């Protein structure tokens, strides 16, 4: 099956955003976060302002892998490879990011994320607001 789509919540300047409930991690298919492909620095939504909040209610640590990007146009540093990080069960999870556009953007601008386990794991994606 294709990857499960994970939309992001944009934080708003000088405002409060209700805590989202999170989306169950899809370890079988992986997940895809659609981010518009941008060509100008400071664009409204960009991977370098993307934050991932991953919870881990399991009794063991999990691994989350942010896949290296593909295509020289979108991801000039995609050759650096995947980013595999440990989601601590003792901490209950963690924050991943911000992330590097040049390393993680797929051809369409999106980001792919894989999980070692979906047990008691949820993920929420946030977009940091554009600076003033």
């Amino acid at each position, binding site marked *: 099956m294709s990857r499960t789509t994970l939309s992001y919540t944009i*934080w708003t*300047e*000088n*405002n*409060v*955003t*209700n*805590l*989202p*409930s999170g989306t169950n991690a899809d370890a079988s298919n992986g997940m895809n976060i659609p981010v518009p492909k941008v060509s100008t*620095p*400071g664009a409204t939504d960009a991977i*370098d*302002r993307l*934050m991932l*909040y991953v*919870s881990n209610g399991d009794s063991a640590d999990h691994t*989350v892998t942010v896949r290296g990007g593909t295509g020289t146009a979108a991801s000039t540093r995609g050759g650096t490879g995947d*980013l595999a*990080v*440990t*989601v*601590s069960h003792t*901490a*209950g*999870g*963690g*924050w*991943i*990011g*911000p*992330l*590097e*556009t040049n*390393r993680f953007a797929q051809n369409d601008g999106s980001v792919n994320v894989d999980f070692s386990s979906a047990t008691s794991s949820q993920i929420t994606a*946030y977009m*940091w*607001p*554009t*600076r*003033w």
Partner: protein
Amino acid sequence: MARTQILLTTLTRNVMTDIPAGTAIDQANGMYIDLTSTSIPAGPGSENLTLEIRTTNGADKTVTIKTGVGGSVNYGPAFRSGIGDLVLTAHAASGGGVVGGLESARFMQATNNQIYIDFQSGITGTITAFVGKGHQ
């Protein structure tokens, strides 16, 4: 008593940061965040600040970001302080919320590079302050 400090958790590019335990909300005294930076280039400002508020009291409660000092005849960095306090609601249904970024020209205090936060009576829970770079 003096305000209670909320220590900063820095989010680092391409790194996992364990979820912090947060700081217990001090409703009685209010709280503050210190953004002092003496480095070059300067550290993150309030535009790169995000507050995660988790409430446990079971009812909606307000959180107030106090206006800074500056503008008109008042010396200080917050030349847009005349807009006043920012009063937000932490909803019980969602267990709280995320606030920010915050505008330094509105909220920065006079000389100590701090942000002041007050809370409605009866609120309980934790607050965590995150900073990260807006651009790489």
